[in-house]
């Protein structure tokens, strides 16, 4: 972005960007603003809200069952994100070093772009009581009764990892693709062990990609709705499900808004924190480099 700009006689920048700016202000910022306002309102009798400022909705959230739900959501999100990143790191590495990058990207992107409900449905067909695994095992005579593979927390985590694995692989691949792999050989020549060259040379250099991968897996999983609804049981509901129930069934809009606020704040703080740490790190590395150059 540091390229010198052509000097035009007139500045049309604002005019070019104006339509999109207006669109986002109207259809994104304003709705979020309304949610913030509604979360401080009283619930109307027939749905909707009454214009009375109150903290009722936030007080309602401090309820042990919601607390449990919140902890479970965080736990499921944490486990799924860690698993997805752990799988994605070697995958991104292998893809970056491969000679068939386009083919591999193609293979990762196809399941990723296939309709999410189709993919969830496929897992139901595999894990269900009369699903692929159970029917196959019964046919082979290994089990007599079908195993309860579906409608529990493990199924939710499995399918979440499945759904968001490409989100983790793609940014890690992009970062690794820009990495100069001869540095690894250099590290080895200088006496680093293989794990050392990986953890001290490769990973710090692809850090931005890892951060992006975490953001793009953690946030959608934290707000997941369809996966826990369709492959989870009643006891594996997540925050997203509660919000939707509050909106569509209970029609308690202030409470739904308050929950949305919690999800928004946790996501935003998470993003800012992740980006902040990587920015600070980048600044630190840059500073160290400048110092070294100065010393030379």
């Amino acid at each position: 972005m540091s390229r010198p700009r052509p000097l035009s006689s007139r500045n049309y920048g604002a005019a070019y960007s104006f339509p999109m700016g207006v669109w986002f202000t109207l259809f994104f910022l304003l709705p979020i603003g309304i949610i913030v306002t509604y979360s401080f309102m009283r619930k109307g009798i027939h749905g909707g809200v009454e214009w009375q400022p109150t903290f009722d909705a936030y007080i309602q959230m401090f309820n042990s069952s919601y607390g449990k739900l919140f902890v479970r959501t965080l736990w499921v999100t944490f486990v799924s994100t860690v698993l997805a990143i752990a799988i994605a790191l070697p995958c991104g590495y292998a893809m970056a070093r491969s000679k068939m990058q386009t083919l591999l990207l193609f293979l990762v992107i196809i399941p990723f772009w296939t309709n999410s409900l189709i993919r969830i449905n496929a897992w139901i067909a595999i894990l269900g009581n009369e699903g692929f695994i159970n029917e196959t095992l019964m046919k082979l005579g290994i089990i007599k009764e079908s195993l309860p593979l579906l409608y529990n927390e493990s199924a939710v985590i499995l399918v979440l990892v499945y759904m968001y694995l490409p989100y983790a692989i793609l940014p890690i691949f992009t970062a690794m693709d820009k990495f100069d792999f001869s540095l690894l050989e250099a590290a080895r020549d200088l006496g680093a062990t293989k794990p050392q060259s990986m953890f001290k040379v490769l990973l710090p250099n692809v850090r931005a990609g890892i951060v992006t991968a975490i953001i793009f897996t953690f946030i959608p999983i934290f707000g997941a709705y369809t996966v826990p609804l369709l492959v989870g049981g009643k006891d594996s509901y997540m925050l997203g499900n509660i919000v939707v129930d509050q909106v569509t069934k209970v029609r308690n809009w202030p409470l739904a808004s308050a929950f949305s606020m919690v999800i928004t704040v946790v996501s935003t703080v998470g993003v800012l924190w992740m980006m902040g740490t990587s920015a600070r790190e980048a600044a630190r590395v840059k500073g160290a480099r400048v110092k070294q150059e100065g010393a030379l």
Partner: protein
Amino acid sequence: MNSKPGFNIYGHFLSRLSKKKPTSEPARHARRAFQNLNHRSLSNTMLTLAIAFLFLPLAVTVVYSFNDAKSMVWTGFSLRWYDKLVFGSEKLWTSFGNSAIIALSAGAVSTALGTLAAIGVNWYRFRGRMYIQTISFLPMVLPEVIIGISMLIFFSAVNVPLGMFTIFIAHTTFCLPFVFLMVLARLDEFDFSIIEAAHDLGASEKQTLFRVIVPAIMPGILSGFMMAVTMSLEDFVITFFVSGPGSTTLPLYVFSMVRYGISPVINALSFVMILGTMAIAFILRNFLKNIAASK
């Protein structure tokens, strides 16, 4: 590099491990084995497994779409579910029509707005530039449920009846950031001297835009458009909130099929949709790297 604090806990852990000399013979062997692990073959195996994992459910669905029986017990090859998909699922095709209308219109509008904004932001410095960049980033990082609910509450607050129009608005909103980023990425590779040349040769701003810039970034614009269409066709969560009676889209219809009992017609539909996805990915094969980078 050696005394880097913070992030690299694993690195520290490992370097500590390697400083300590294991005394017993098996431990030393184990350590050497770990250090001599070939990372490339290890990661290649992992990648193969991951791709198998990603394709396994799709493969099972495709295979069972040709199964004669309704259950997951294989009874014989049959095309009856495809027959039912093509000739016996009118509602499904209506919903597909709705989806197509929304995807094309939302794709077109988001591509137009996103491209213009990207040119403006990449080109000029102006007041509100930071605002544009920040606000175009936010919809990507908020969970879909939040965007859906905020839109639902917004439309009901301003008394807009839910239907095709509200879905179009919502889809344009969540497609815009991606188009914007993809065009921006393309502009970053752009040789600016061409524009200077155009200006020097007396081209007006409008001429420069339509005769120089737009043709040069056309691949970026097209892939942004395709991206938007794909995302719109696939979205369920946001659509779920802002749809009204008579505006069922394909994902909404599929949801009701998944939710209320499995009919093998959905397997047949899955295969058709997977083929569609493959076709789109194939058309976009030269931009896959850009797409990966914009995620």
